[in-house]
C-alpha cells in the first residue's frame, strides 16, 4: 500500500510552491509549521485553506495569527460546507485588519467554546444560517484590534503618533507615506503590546467598506477544481485501515449471525468488528471492506422496532394532534372569532421525513491510543463531538483532538456526532488508525431525518375576506428537546414553531400550539431550513387558500395584510414585479408566491410552473427577492439562493423517506431522487440593499420554495396540494 500521507503531501505542496516561487510567479512567501514540527517550510497559499496547524507570532485574539513572514491566518470558527463562509468570514476580518482577501489563509478552529462560540445559537456550531450574523461584530473587532496594534508597533518604532499612520494591504505607512513596514516585520513588536478589550475598538462606518459588500472570489475554489481539497473522507494516515460498516437496518436491532470466516477469506480484509448495533469490516481498502461485508452475509435481530411503519406514525400524529399542545402564541381570542366569522376555512397539512443525502457520505477516521484520541472528520459541531468522544473513551476532553475538515455537504447532518460515535466504538477494537466509511445505502437508511409533521389549521374570514381568526396546531418530533433541552420551556420547541408562531401578516386573533410526538424507531434531526421548511410551506399555502376563499389575487391579498410590515411587503412586491405577476400564461401554467421572515431575513419567491396532462410538473422559473440586511458577498448570496432553492425544490418534488417493518424503504439516488441538471429551473436573485442588521441566507430559499411551487400548481390546475412531496398522480388532467 502506498504510504503517501497528509504530511508528505504538505511537504510536496510546499516543494511545489517553492519551485513556483523561485520561478517568480509572485506567490506570497509564506511560513507554515507542519504538525508539531518546528521546521519551517515555504507554504505559499496555492491553497488558502490550510489543513495543518499554523502558529503565529502575533496572536492578539482567537482569530488572528500573523508571523514574521507576513502570512496572515484566520483561525475560522465556522466550518465550510459550501455556504461560502470561509470567504465571507475572511472578508469580515480582512476589511478591518486592512489586508487583501488573498493574503488571508484560513485554518479550521479547534473545539473551544470560549473562543469560538456561535453567539446566535450558543454553541460552536455551524448552523441556523447564523455564521455571518454571529461573527459580523466579533471578526471585525478582531481585525480592527489587530490593525491598531500593528499600527501602534510601527508608530513606536518611528516615534510618531499612531493616529498619523495608516494601514493598507498588510503594510503600515507613516503620514508622508515614505516610511512603511509590513505586518510581518511588525508581528514580533506588535505581539509585545497590551491588547485592549475588543468592545472599545472603533469599527469602520459601513460607507467606508472596501471589501464587505463586494463580489470577492471564494477562497476555497482553487483546491476544489483539481482534486486537492481534502474532506474528512480523504484522510490518510500511516498504517490506517479502512472500514465499511453495516448498521442494523432497524433502530435498536442487533447482528444475529456474521460469517466471519467467509469475510476474512476476502483478500485485503483484516478484521471483523461486531458491536451488535453494527458490524464493521476492517480492510486495506474500501473495495475489500465492502466485499467482506457481502461475504459476511449478516442477519439481524430486529428488536422492538421491527414493526414500525409510516402508516402507524401518521396515525399516531393524527390522534395526538387532536389534543392541545404547548402554546407558542395566543393573541386575542381566536376561538371566539372563528365561531363568529363570516366564512371558515380548515385544512390539514403533512410533510414527510427527509434525508440529507449530502454528496460526501458519512465517514470518520479515529486513532484511539491509551492517552489520546484523534478524530479526523468534517463536523458542524466540534465541541459536542469532542465531549461525546471524551465520554465514550473516558479520556479528558483535551486529550480528544478534533481535526476538522471541509464538508462535502452538511445540510445539518454533520451537526450530529453519531457517525463519530460509531467510528470510535469500532476503533476501540482496532489497533491503529481506522477510517470508517458509510455506503450511500447506509447513509440514507441511517440518517437522522427531518421530522414528519402534521398540521391542523383553521381560519375565519370576515365579510371582506380578511382573516379575523387563525389557529395552527403543529404535531411532530422535537429535535430541540433532544439536542438543546434547555431551549425547550414548558414543552414548547421554538424551532418547531418558527415562522408559524409569528407569520408576517396582520392576524388579530391567533393561536398556535405544538404537540410533541416522537415516532418510534426513527431518529430525527436538523435539516437545512429546520422548522421554517415545514412551517412556511404550511402557512404560505394556507394564506393562499384564504386568498382563494376571499376571491382575491394571492399577491394583492398578502399585500393587504402586510401594511405594518414594510420589509416583507418590499420583498413581496419586488418578487412579484420581477416575475411579471399578473401577465397572461398558457393553460396549465401558473405562478405562485410565498413570503417569509426567518433566520433574520425577509424573502419572497415566485415560482412559475407547467403541469402536463399526465400530472408531471415542470418548474420553469423561480424569482427570489431577498432582504438580508447588510450583506458581505452578493455572489455568495446568489449562489445560496440558487442552491438553497434547489435543495428545497428537490424535497418538494421528490423527497420522502418512508418506513416499513422498521426499515427505511429508500436506499440510494434511484429511490431518494436528487434533482439533476436537466430538471432544474433558472433561479433569479434580486437583492435588496439596506443598512439593517445582517440576516441569514443559507436556509431561507430552501424554506420558502415549496409553497411558491404548490401555490403555482394551484393556479395552474385548481388542485390544492396539502402534503409533500408533490403527488403528480393527483394532477392529471381530467379532460
Amino acid at each position: 500500500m502506498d504510504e503517501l500521507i497528509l504530511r508528505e503531501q504538505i511537504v510536496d505542496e510546499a516543494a511545489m510552491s517553492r519551485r513556483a516561487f523561485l520561478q517568480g510567479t509572485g506567490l506570497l512567501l509564506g511560513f507554515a509549521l507542519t504538525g508539531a514540527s518546528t521546521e519551517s517550510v515555504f507554504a505559499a497559499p496555492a491553497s488558502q485553506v490550510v489543513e495543518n496547524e499554523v502558529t503565529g507570532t502575533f496572536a492578539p485574539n482567537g482569530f488572528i495569527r500573523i508571523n514574521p513572514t507576513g502570512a496572515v491566518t484566520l483561525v475560522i470558527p465556522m466550518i465550510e460546507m459550501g455556504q461560502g463562509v470561509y470567504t465571507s468570514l475572511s472578508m469580515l476580518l480582512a476589511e478591518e485588519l486592512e489586508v487583501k482577501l488573498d493574503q488571508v489563509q484560513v485554518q479550521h478552529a479547534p473545539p473551544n467554546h470560549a473562543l469560538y462560540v456561535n453567539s446566535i445559537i450558543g454553541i460552536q456550531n455551524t448552523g441556523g444560517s447564523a455564521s455571518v450574523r454571529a461573527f459580523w461584530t466579533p471578526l471585525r473587532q478582531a481585525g480592527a484590534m489587530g490593525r491598531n496594534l500593528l499600527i501602534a508597533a510601527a508608530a513606536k518604532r518611528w516615534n510618531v503618533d499612531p493616529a498619523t499612520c495608516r494601514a493598507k494591504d498588510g503594510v503600515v505607512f507613516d503620514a508622508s507615506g515614505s516610511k512603511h513596514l509590513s505586518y510581518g516585520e511588525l508581528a514580533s513588536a506588535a505581539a509585545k503590546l497590551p491588547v485592549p478589550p475588543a468592545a472599545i475598538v472603533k469599527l469602520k462606518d459601513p460607507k467606508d467598506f472596501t471589501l464587505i459588500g463586494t463580489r470577492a472570489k471564494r477562497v476555497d475554489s482553487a483546491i476544489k477544481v483539481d482534486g486537492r481539497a481534502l474532506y474528512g473522507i480523504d484522510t490518510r494516515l500511516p498504517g490506517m485501515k479502512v472500514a465499511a460498516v453495516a448498521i442494523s437496518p432497524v433502530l435498536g436491532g442487533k447482528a444475529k449471525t456474521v460469517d466471519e470466516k467467509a469475510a476474512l477469506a476476502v483478500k485485503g480484509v483484516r478484521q471483523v468488528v461486531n458491536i451488535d448495533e453494527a458490524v464493521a469490516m476492517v480492510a486495506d481498502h474500501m473495495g475489500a471492506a465492502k466485499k467482506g461485508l457481502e461475504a459476511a452475509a449478516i442477519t439481524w435481530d430486529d428488536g422492538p422496532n421491527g414493526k414500525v411503519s409510516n402508516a402507524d406514525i401518521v396515525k399516531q400524529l393524527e390522534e395526538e394532534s387532536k389534543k392541545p399542545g404547548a402554546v407558542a402564541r395566543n393573541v386575542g381570542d381566536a376561538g371566539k372569532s372563528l365561531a363568529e366569522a363570516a366564512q371558515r376555512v380548515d385544512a390539514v397539512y403533512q410533510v414527510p421525513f427527509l434525508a440529507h443525502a449530502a454528496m460526501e457520505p458519512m465517514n470518520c477516521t479515529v486513532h484511539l491510543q491509551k492517552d489520546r484520541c484523534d478524530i479526523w472528520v468534517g463536523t458542524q459541531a466540534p465541541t459536542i463531538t469532542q465531549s461525546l468522544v471524551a465520554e465514550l473513551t473516558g479520556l479528558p476532553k483535551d486529550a480528544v483532538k478534533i481535526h476538522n475538515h471541509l464538508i462535502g455537504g452538511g445540510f445539518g447532518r454533520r451537526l450530529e456526532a453519531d457517525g463519530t460515535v460509531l467510528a470510535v466504538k469500532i476503533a476501540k477494537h482496532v489497533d491503529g488508525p481506522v477510517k470508517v466509511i458509510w455506503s450511500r445505502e447506509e447513509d440514507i437508511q441511517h440518517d437522522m431525518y427531518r421530522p414528519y409533521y402534521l398540521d391542523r389549521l383553521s381560519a375565519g374570514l370576515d365579510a371582506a375576506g380578511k382573516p379575523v381568526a387563525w389557529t395552527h396546531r403543529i404535531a411532530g418530533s422535537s429535535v430541540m428537546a433532544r439536542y438543546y433541552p434547555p431551549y425547550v420551556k414548558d414543552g414548547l420547541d421554538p424551532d418547531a414553531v418558527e415562522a408559524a408562531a409569528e407569520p408576517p401578516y396582520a392576524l388579530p386573533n391567533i393561536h398556535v400550539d405544538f404537540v410533541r410526538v416522537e415516532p418510534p424507531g426513527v431518529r430525527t434531526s436538523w435539516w437545512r431550513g429546520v422548522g421554517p421548511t415545514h412551517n412556511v410551506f404550511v402557512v404560505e399555502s394556507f394564506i393562499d387558500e384564504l386568498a382563494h376563499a376571499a376571491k382575491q389575487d394571492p399577491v394583492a391579498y398578502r399585500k393587504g395584510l402586510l401594511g405594518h410590515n414594510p420589509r416583507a411587503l418590499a420583498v413581496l412586491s419586488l418578487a412579484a414585479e420581477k416575475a411579471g405577476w399578473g401577465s397572461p400564461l398558457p393553460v396549465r401554467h401558473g405562478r405562485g408566491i410565498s413570503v417569509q421572515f426567518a433566520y433574520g431575513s425577509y424573502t419572497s419567491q415566485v415560482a412559475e410552473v407547467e403541469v402536463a396532462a399526465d400530472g408531471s410538473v415542470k418548474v420553469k422559473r423561480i424569482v427570489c427577492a431577498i432582504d438580508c440586511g447588510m450583506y458581505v458577498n452578493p455572489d455568495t448570496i446568489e449562489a445560496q439562493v440558487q442552491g438553497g432553492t434547489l435543495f428545497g425544490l428537490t424535497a418538494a418534488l421528490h423527497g420522502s423517506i418512508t418506513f416499513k417493518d422498521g426499515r427505511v424503504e429508500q436506499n440510494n439516488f434511484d429511490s431518494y431522487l436528487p434533482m439533476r441538471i436537466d430538471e432544474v429551473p433558472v433561479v433569479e436573485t434580486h437583492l435588496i440593499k439596506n443598512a439593517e442588521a445582517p440576516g441569514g441566507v443559507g436556509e431561507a430559499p430552501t424554506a420558502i420554495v415549496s409553497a411558491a411551487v404548490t401555490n403555482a400548481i394551484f393556479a395552474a390546475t385548481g388542485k390544492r396540494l396539502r402534503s409533500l412531496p408533490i403527488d403528480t398522480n393527483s394532477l392529471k388532467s381530467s379532460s
Partner: protein
Amino acid sequence: MAFTLKINGTPHEVDVDGDIPLLWVLRDVLGMTGTKFGCGQALCGACTVHVDGQPVRSCQTPVDSVGDSAVTTIEAIGQAPQGAALQKAWLELEVVQCGYCQSGQIMSAAALLKDTPKPTDNDIDAAMSGNVCRCGTYQRIRAAIKHAAGV
C-alpha cells in the same frame, strides 16, 4: 492479482482482486483522493474518470477491466485543453460550493467538450445529468461549460 495501471501517464503496480472497483484502487491504494465516492452504484457521477478519453464511473469499473487503457483523473485533467478551460471557467464563474461533486462534474464536462466543442443545452443535459450536485450548482455548471466552450 497484480495489475499495472496507466494513470495520468504513469504506470502504477497494484495487487488487489480483479473485481475491486477502480475508485478504491485510486483512492485507498494509490492515495489519489481527488476522485470521489458518492453512491457506489454509478448513480451520481462523483467518481467519474476517463478511460481512454471516455468518461466512466470508477465505482462500477472493476480494475481487471481497465487493462492497458489510459486512465485520467481530476488530478491531471488540467493538462488537457478542455480540462484547463473548464477549471478556469469554474473559477471565473464561482461554480463550487461544497465542491465534493465537482471533480466528477469537471471530468464529465471535459469529456463532453472533447467530443462536442460547442455543446447545446441539450448536449449539456445529456452529458451532465448523470452527475448529482446536492448544493445545487447546476445553473453555474451549465454557464461555466458554455463559458469554457465559448458558446
